[in-house]
């Protein structure tokens, strides 16, 4: 009787153990699968949150850049107006007085000085006009981006050893005044930098318009930059001009690429998305 009871107890115990192990194994499988699933869902959520945060950060950064660029443009406009309307007007009035001066009673030396002063005032008027124009291009406003670039290139390389050619796509019409101004400033800064640092003998500016983008290619034979050098320089305090270029490109959601084509031949490709 006792041995029968013991055998029955052993049977129950064994059944319980096998049952418990089976349940335990199934539970472990569910636990592991559930953990893995939760981990993947959590990771995706975290990534989405991180993405949203970086988008927000980028948006804030763009707003800061935009406000800095706008304030810079406003200041340029103000200085240009003051130079043109106040200094320019003062110089023009001085010139009128100088021209109307009776020089008959002056000695030969004084006459020469008078002519010299008139010449210097003329030169000053011209310089004020040039600076004012560079700070705020009326041509850009009146005749559009292409004409402003042609005019700028003619003025900056005229009378120098730099030979420039401009081949712009006339299909491009004014799409957005702010975009045009930003592109103009980028081209202006790039060409100024080229003349100042790269000392090229030839600069060629070409633009092509496609359905989605406006592409500028600046080809030159000076001592140009590679993309790595550009990336390095724009983070240096001295590379303020390059930083401004990069800021404007960020605002335009465009792209800039510095490439060395061969010995002494470089290109700068500027790509701007446009809506036609």
């Amino acid at each position: 009787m006792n041995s029968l009871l013991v055998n029955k107890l052993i049977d129950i115990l064994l059944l319980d153990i096998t049952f418990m192990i089976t349940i335990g194994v199934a539970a472990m499988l569910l636990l592991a699968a559930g953990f893995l699933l939760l981990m993947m869902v959590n990771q995706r959520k975290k990534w989405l949150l991180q993405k949203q945060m970086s988008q927000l950060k980028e948006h804030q950064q763009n707003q800061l850049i935009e406000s800095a660029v706008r304030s810079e443009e406003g200041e340029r406009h103000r200085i240009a107006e003051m130079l043109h309307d106040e200094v320019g007007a003062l110089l023009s009035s001085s010139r009128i007085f100088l021209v109307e001066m009776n020089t008959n009673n002056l000695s030969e030396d004084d006459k020469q000085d008078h002519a010299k002063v008139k010449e210097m005032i003329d030169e000053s008027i011209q310089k004020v006009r040039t600076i004012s124009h560079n700070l705020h291009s009326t041509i850009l406003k009146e005749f559009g981006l292409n004409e402003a670039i042609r005019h700028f290139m003619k003025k900056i390389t005229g009378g120098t050893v730099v030979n420039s050619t401009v081949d712009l796509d006339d299909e491009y019409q004014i799409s957005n005044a702010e975009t045009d101004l930003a592109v103009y400033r980028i081209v202006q800064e790039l060409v100024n930098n080229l003349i100042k640092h790269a000392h090229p003998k030839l600069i060629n500016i070409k633009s092509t318009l496609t359905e989605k983008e406006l592409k500028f290619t600046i080809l030159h034979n000076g001592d140009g930059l590679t993309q790595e050098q550009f990336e390095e320089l724009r983070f240096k305090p001295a590379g303020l001009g390059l930083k401004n270029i990069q800021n404007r490109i960020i605002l335009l959601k465009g792209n800039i690429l510095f490439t060395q084509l061969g010995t002494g031949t470089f290109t700068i490709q500027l790509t701007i998305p446009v809506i036609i």
Partner: protein
Amino acid sequence: MGKILEGVLDWSEVWATLIPLIVFIWIKPRAIWTRPLLIYLLIALLLGVVVDITWKSKELGIKDWVEKTFWWLYHGKYLYTLIFYNINSFLRLLLFAWFFYMVNPLYKKTYIVITGVFLIGVIINFIFFESIVLSFSSRLFTIEAAIILFYCLLYYYTVNMNDEIKSPLALPPFWIVMGLTLYTSVNFLIFLFYNYLINAETNYAISIWNVHNLIYIVLMIFIAIGFKKAK
């Protein structure tokens, strides 16, 4: 049908191991972390083949040859292949610790210390407490599974801390760690009670080992996917 399924599961430790090996030969992944896995797969294949041909020698008609070649596995008239399982478990931990050392190097010292202590423990266990030849070491298998599971958790922690990862499934080692997690967690209880079950409930022990074999197939498929993604 049942016989075929039984045969497929019995031989799974051989044919399933071939899946990642074939993928490895086909893809030739360059990632350095695939090396310990390749070594493990080759060892597992060799041990799997030896276990299965000695165990199934009668069905295969090679009983005499097995008796002559593997005479040292016989104790009395009984054949003991448990030594291969024990060696497999011991080498598996070493090689997967090496794998984790490479894919999650943040915890290098942890792997070295834990694996070192485990090695010492294994040696002491087989010298003083259990026979490496005559017993299935539930202690070895269970502790090995727990340690690998712990290494998996460390890996998940590192992945979870990295906000740059959009989907962990894009990481080739993640597939292998996922396979290891399933393998060790599901088999933990099987390993823990297996020594007892062999003696007390042999039929159940044989049946539950099929669950091990199924999860082993899953592990091998996940390793193969990891290799494929590591191209």
